[in-house]
């Protein structure tokens, strides 16, 4: 099989602007593009460039939902576009979360900041076959309550008894407290692990967040007794080509784009500089 770099044209179908600078775009393609949870696509704006991003929910035939932070030159360009405008999409690239590990087990999902986006894709996949998954626990840390992504949806999943949910934020700005306002813990997301009730022998973990999160959380999960082969994390690197050529994402000799971006802790321990 040969690879080229021709993008598919995609129309911006919806833009959800609930969280400032973390809008959720839905891209509608002319043909189905199967993007599994954890896999990524390259979204392209002609004249500006492209960036790698995961789907933040289930990809239903030709529509890809994606939560995209306004973080650089190309995403800034995307934020200038409107519904109906066209972008380019290449992919899918890499290996997603190995869903087969999750069925029949409890799932522990740990998200930091924008790391909630790929984990929401995984969460939706698990909820689609809810009966085949065990207990689903989501620990989610963000800078402040206003930056929590998909907050209403996640709270509704919790109310329906579909998941156990624990939020934490670094800073609280919703003060003074008034009746009915949002209540959550304050602190780093790894602190949510303390006192957490899980059965490590039947738990599969998935972690996504900034590099600092991996440094403190992954080995802590292993010390709780979850086997390192069942602790998964997805790595963010500079991915330009997506196919293991351009070398920007290489970490410890591994192409994160093609051999990852999802790895087990057992694998990550053998990739120098991965965590």
């Amino acid at each position, binding site marked *: *099989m*040969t*690879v*080229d*770099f*021709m*993008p598919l*044209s995609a129309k911006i179908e919806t833009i959800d602007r609930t969280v400032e600078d973390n809008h959720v775009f839905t891209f509608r393609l002319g043909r189905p593009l199967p993007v599994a949870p954890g896999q990524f696509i390259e979204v*392209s704006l*002609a*004249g*500006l*460039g*492209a*960036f790698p991003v995961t789907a933040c929910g289930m990809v239903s035939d030709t529509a890809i939902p994606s939560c995209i*932070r306004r*973080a*650089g030159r190309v*995403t800034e360009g995307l934020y200038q576009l409107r519904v109906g405008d066209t972008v*380019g999409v290449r992919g899918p690239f890499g290996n997603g979360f190995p869903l087969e590990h999750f069925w029949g087990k409890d799932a522990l999902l740990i998200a930091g900041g924008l790391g909630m986006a790929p984990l929401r894709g995984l969460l939706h996949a698990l909820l689609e076959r809810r009966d085949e998954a065990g207990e689903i626990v989501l620990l989610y840390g963000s800078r402040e309550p206003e930056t929590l992504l998909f907050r209403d949806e996640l709270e509704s999943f919790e109310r329906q008894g579909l998941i156990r949910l624990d939020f934490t934020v670094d800073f609280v700005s919703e003060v003074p407290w008034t009746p009915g306002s949002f209540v959550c813990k304050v602190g780093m997301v790894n602190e949510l692990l303390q006192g957490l009730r899980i059965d490590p022998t039947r738990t599969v973990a998935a972690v996504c967040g*900034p*590099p600092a999160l991996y440094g403190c959380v992954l080995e802590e999960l292993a010390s709780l007794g979850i086997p390192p082969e069942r602790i998964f994390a997805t790595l*963010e*690197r*500079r991915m*330009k*080509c997506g*196919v*293991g*050529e*351009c*070398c*920007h*994402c*290489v*970490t410890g*000799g*591994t*192409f994160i784009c*093609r*051999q990852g971006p999802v790895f087990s802790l057992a694998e990550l321990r053998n990739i*120098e*500089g991965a965590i």
Partner: protein
Amino acid sequence: MAGHTYRKGFEKALVEHLHRDGQLWGVAVDDDGVARLRPATTAFELGSTKLPLIPPKKILLPPREAMWHLPPDGAYREPEIQNDKTVLLGILPCDLYALWYLDRVFAEDSSYLKRRQKLVLVGTMCQPSEQCFCPPHASPPPFDLFLAEGCVWAGSSLGQSCLADLADHLDMSESRPLPAELTAGKSDAAPEDLERLFLESRHRPLWKNEAQRCLSCGACSAVCPTCYCYDVVDSAGLDGGVTRQREWDNCFFRNHALVAGGHNFRPDRAERLRFRFEHKYLGFGEMRGEQSCVGCGRCVSACPVDIDLSSLLNRLCGVIQ
């Protein structure tokens, strides 16, 4: 692989024969003393070839090449790749081995393959320089024809049909095997436990000490026959059309591993030097464990501050302190 002794006049006849197939390229030394690989005429003499400053990778991976073009209000267009054959004359064994490495890295890349299929390689034996340090190889590199010691070998069907056409210039009565070593084999193979030594060296001062001199100029990677990393850059035309291009990048540049949001995964020169060393001696991805350095010595010649990866290898392995 059987080779045949050739008679006087064969080299000239060969060049003229190949000229009918496509554009000839050969190495010429310019007035500034720099050897360059560039278009050649049928007057090109095969015998006196030198290592060009920029290796043949520039033919297969042009310094800047289109990935697609989007005309105004149009549909994405695939890049146009020239359909003519390119005949590289007098390519030295180290550069042939480097092409073999690139062939495997870009085995699925459509633009690379289109160019590679149009490439005719005529190799010749080298005169080792003071700065080269080629490792031993287990098998010969790819070539269509290879000339050494008055003898010619065909390494492809194109090469064979070429020799059949020029049979008048060959002595077919005897055949000689390809020399076991095409390179001078001036350095040993990297040690088998290099992976371990490399991993253990992460915090050793050797990287930092050496990198202190590094200017991050990237000359070493630009002239390296197996450095191929690229950046992706858009350029907009005055008509509103956009061309996406890939262009040579450099792992010594500070933003090579920088992601949006400002995190840099290789923020200092020592890590970037170690990264390049890792690619040259250990390889990335499926090529892990295979040395990509062919020992041509270009990086040593090009480095303005005398950084020498082969000497770093020796220090890492404890050969020298």
